[in-house]
């Protein structure tokens, strides 16, 4: 029996004086929080600060001891929890794809329980896979264990979007990924975030992630909400020491003239170095095993450019080597000044550079990353 849609769009999610206690331990204390329709609100804070508890109370995985939570002015306690959860997408760090189901079955699980036809489910799964940049043909009938961490994370997002929920809860969705892949997925997510145009509550402990993705940021500590506001507000008017500590990471990068490329790069290891003679198919396999989605291509130990997983998977049925499909990449020395590096990147219209140190690739330089840190 199909679940009735509880709301077509979110006007606001309101938490009023919400408290949750476990014995002596207070997880959330008298929390007042408003998530506005259409915004991406980040909750950030040290572990144990109550951010995840807050998130889980919104889809009633946890029920508050005191206080009221409303969505569009309806008390969520008046909704059946199962129906409520089907109207709210949920993505977590551990992904939790069911190992005994194919990707199609994983994404199509709730639609199937809702009585959709096989055709409708297939169409929806295809659409969602396209949406998260995975080709439906190669992924629909695979099992989760055959996927890399980044791919699984994308499937986790697709599953959360299956019922087209107007509200999305995300609990450190990129937390388990390695830093470079994390940045790639954040960039991707930033793009689809505009497209999905829904209300999102996003929990993280990574301030860079918060600044990169959030419209507003709420800072939690010791079961309380300390301050909430736009990134600029937090930086310019921190409420107290703790807030300025958390956002402080931004400030030390204010003096651009003294900064060098090595200060801002994301270091890479040999895992990221692929030989130009490798076939696209082998490259995909190796990326899947090592959980990376981007690689620097070396021809006779000389870097010639980069390849990305999303592009490679479209090539696996052709007999191509990385040499044939490599994308050029600007190269910097680790001692270059940030300003000149940025200029060079801008001229070439690229967003990614390779950093060399003593003739060896030592890191990647993301345009977005640098710009963000220089707010």
């Amino acid at each position, binding site marked *: 029996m199909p*679940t009735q849609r509880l709301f077509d769009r979110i006007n606001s999610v309101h938490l009023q004086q919400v408290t949750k206690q476990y014995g002596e331990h207070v997880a959330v204390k008298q929390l007042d929080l408003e998530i506005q329709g259409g915004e991406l609100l980040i909750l950030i804070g040290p572990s144990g600060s109550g951010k995840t508890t807050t998130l*889980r109370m919104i*889809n009633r*995985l946890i029920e508050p001891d005191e206080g009221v939570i409303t969505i569009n002015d309806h008390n969520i306690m008046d909704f059946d929890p*199962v*129906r*409520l*959860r*089907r*109207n*709210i997408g*949920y993505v*977590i760090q*551990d992904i*939790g794809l*069911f*190992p*005994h189901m194919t990707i199609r079955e994983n994404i199509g*699980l*709730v639609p199937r*329980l809702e009585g959709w036809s096989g055709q409708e489910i297939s169409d929806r799964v295809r659409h969602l896979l396209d949406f998260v940049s995975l080709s439906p043909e190669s992924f629909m009938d695979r099992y989760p*264990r055959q996927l890399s961490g980044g791919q699984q994370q994308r499937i986790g997002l697709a*599953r*959360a979007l299956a*019922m087209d929920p107007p509200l999305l809860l995300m609990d450190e969705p990129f937390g388990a990924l390695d830093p470079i892949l994390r940045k790639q997925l954040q960039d991707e997510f930033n793009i689809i975030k505009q497209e999905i145009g829904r209300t999102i509550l996003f929990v993280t402990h990574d301030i860079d992630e918060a600044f990169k993705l959030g419209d507003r940021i709420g800072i939690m500590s010791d079961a309380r909400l300390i301050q909430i506001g736009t990134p600029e507000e937090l930086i310019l008017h921190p409420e107290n020491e703790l807030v300025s500590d958390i956002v402080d990471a931004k400030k030390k990068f204010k003096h651009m003239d003294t900064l060098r490329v090595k200060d801002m790069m994301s270091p890479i290891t040999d895992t990221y170095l692929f030989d130009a003679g490798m076939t696209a198919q082998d490259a995909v396999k190796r990326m899947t095993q090592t959980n990376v989605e981007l690689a620097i291509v070396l021809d006779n130990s000389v870097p010639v450019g980069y390849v990305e997983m999303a592009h490679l998977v479209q090539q696996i049925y052709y007999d191509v080597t990385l040499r044939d499909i490599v994308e050029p990449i600007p190269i910097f020395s680790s001692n270059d000044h940030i300003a000149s590096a940025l200029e060079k990147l801008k001229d070439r219209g690229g967003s990614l550079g390779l950093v060399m140190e003593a003739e060896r690739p030592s890191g990647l330089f993301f345009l977005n990353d640098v710009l963000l840190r220089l707010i």
Partner: protein
Amino acid sequence: MQVVDVWDSQLLTMRTFEHLYMFSIALFSATIIGIGIGIIVFLHPKIADTVLNILNTIETLPDIALLVLLLPFLGLGAKPTIVASILYSILPITRNTYVGLKSVNKEYIYIAQSIGLSSNEILLNVRIPMALPLIAGGFRIALVFTMGLITLGGLIAAGGLGTALQTGIYLYDVDTILVAGLWTGVLAVILDAVAGIIESRLQVRYGIW
């Protein structure tokens, strides 16, 4: 050929069919009942220990004693044989079902809840499929028990291969004992191997967690 003669004189084709007929009914019923009880005790953990203890007690009984205990109630023949097989084979299936349902990784239950599955849907779509390899393990043990008890049924006029064994022993007919005994053994090993294959298939399909 001597084997063929013995085979024909002891009606082993018919006996095999009788045997497999009782075997299928007993094992099928034990599987349905066993999984059913396993699910019920999973849903009512308070009674789990009591029920498992009762089933354990039944299984401590010597199989042949269980068989003859049913005679006063059910008479001779296939009926007590099938009932005894079922009673004996429920435990491994119930126990494995119960353990299988219970030991599904909490993380999957949690994620199922959070994407909006009701408890019944979680049982049907997550717990039961993930418990299948263990349930199949219990089924395989039950299969061996059932085979053993159906063979004993020959002693209480149930027909089947046990009848041929009994005739052979009572007449001290060495050829009959050898042919019927070896055939019974081979049949049991083959059926067990088939169950083993099913088990490992399920392991591959559902077992990674």
